[in-house]
């Protein structure tokens, strides 16, 4: 009987990601076997819920281990952005979505055992952040325009098909742009990723020529400097915290 239970448990271990299985499937099966000998079928009362709790955690960890830190922050920004859209744009109907977003966020945070976006105290002040490269003031201006545009249109009935979606979109991307600029002095790839993503709506409204040109300049600036460019030396640099 014990062998049959162990065989079922071994089969269920396939639910864990391959990398985790490679290291721990054998000791886990062995441990379950020990438990089975001590407690009989009651071993399943622990192993079942344990699997329900831990398979998603390990799956999420495996996914996060494959993506770069920059992509991880962009993914988090997209989740936050989705939450903002859900709250502002879709009201109470967004509750199930928010639960999923919160669960994914919690799993990611727990899985990494560290903060994904550094706390506010570690970010550069905005002023040095916008003087670090020739295109940074343009990016900051674009971000500010998006935020002001979002605030300005939030009460209008006719923005983007009469929904509040467009305003939330602008607010979130404007915030993403400023966050990217503040993040850049510490982590080029992450900061640049956020800035590039936040610039996209400037191209979406290409018929409004000024933001499109500004967006283009920002992209040229980021990409011509290399995606992980080193900070430009300021003539009269202002001190701000540096990463360890």
């Amino acid at each position, binding site marked *: 009987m014990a062998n049959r239970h162990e065989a079922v448990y071994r089969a269920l271990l396939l639910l864990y990601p391959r990398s985790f299985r490679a290291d*721990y499937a054998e*000791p*886990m099966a062995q*441990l379950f076997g020990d*438990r089975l000998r001590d407690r009989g079928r009651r071993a399943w009362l622990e192993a079942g819920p344990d699997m329900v*709790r*831990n398979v998603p955690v390990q799956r999420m960890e495996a996914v996060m281990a494959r993506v770069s830190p920059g992509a991880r922050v962009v993914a988090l920004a997209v989740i936050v952005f989705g939450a903002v859209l859900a709250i502002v744009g879709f009201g109470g109907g967004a509750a199930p979505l928010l639960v999923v977003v919160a669960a994914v966020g919690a799993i990611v945070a727990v899985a990494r055992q*560290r903060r994904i976006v550094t706390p506010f105290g570690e970010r550069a002040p905005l002023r040095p952040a916008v003087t670090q490269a020739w295109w940074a003031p343009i990016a900051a201006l674009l971000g500010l325009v998006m935020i002001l545009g979002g605030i300005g249109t939030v009460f209008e009935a006719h923005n983007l098909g009469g929904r509040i979606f467009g305003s939330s979109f602008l607010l979130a991307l404007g915030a993403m742009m400023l966050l990217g600029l503040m993040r850049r002095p510490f982590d080029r790839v992450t900061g640049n990723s956020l800035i590039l993503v936040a610039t996209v709506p400037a191209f979406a409204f290409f018929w409004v020529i000024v933001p499109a040109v500004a967006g283009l300049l920002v992209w040229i600036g980021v990409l011509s400097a290399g995606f992980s460019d080193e900070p430009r030396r300021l003539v009269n640099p202002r001190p701000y915290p540096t990463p360890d």
Partner: protein
Amino acid sequence: MKELLPLPSATLHILVALAPGEKHGYAIMRDVEALSDGAVRMGPGTLYGSVKRMLADGLIEEAPARPDPELDDQRRRYYRLTGLGERVRAAELARLEALVRRAGSAEWAQRRVPRLREA
């Protein structure tokens, strides 16, 4: 080290269980149960998920020496505390001791909570 504190419950229990010496997974599981009077029961996924993170954080390491094959299964993996793990365990226990001491003190019990004004 400070960034690791406060520890998740499972991590602390494993560190405490490993304090006397190296143990394999099932021994850790049983000792955690005994330590907590049966209140904390870890399944295999929780145990090895925690072990994986603790190995990555450098809190524990796999013990290279295997027991006598006649006494135990050679496939078992044994784990032991690292120096960092020992320090983190001590720091977390000190933190919890201070919390318990403060929570039980008369000074804390008599602390006045400002009352909300009624509307």
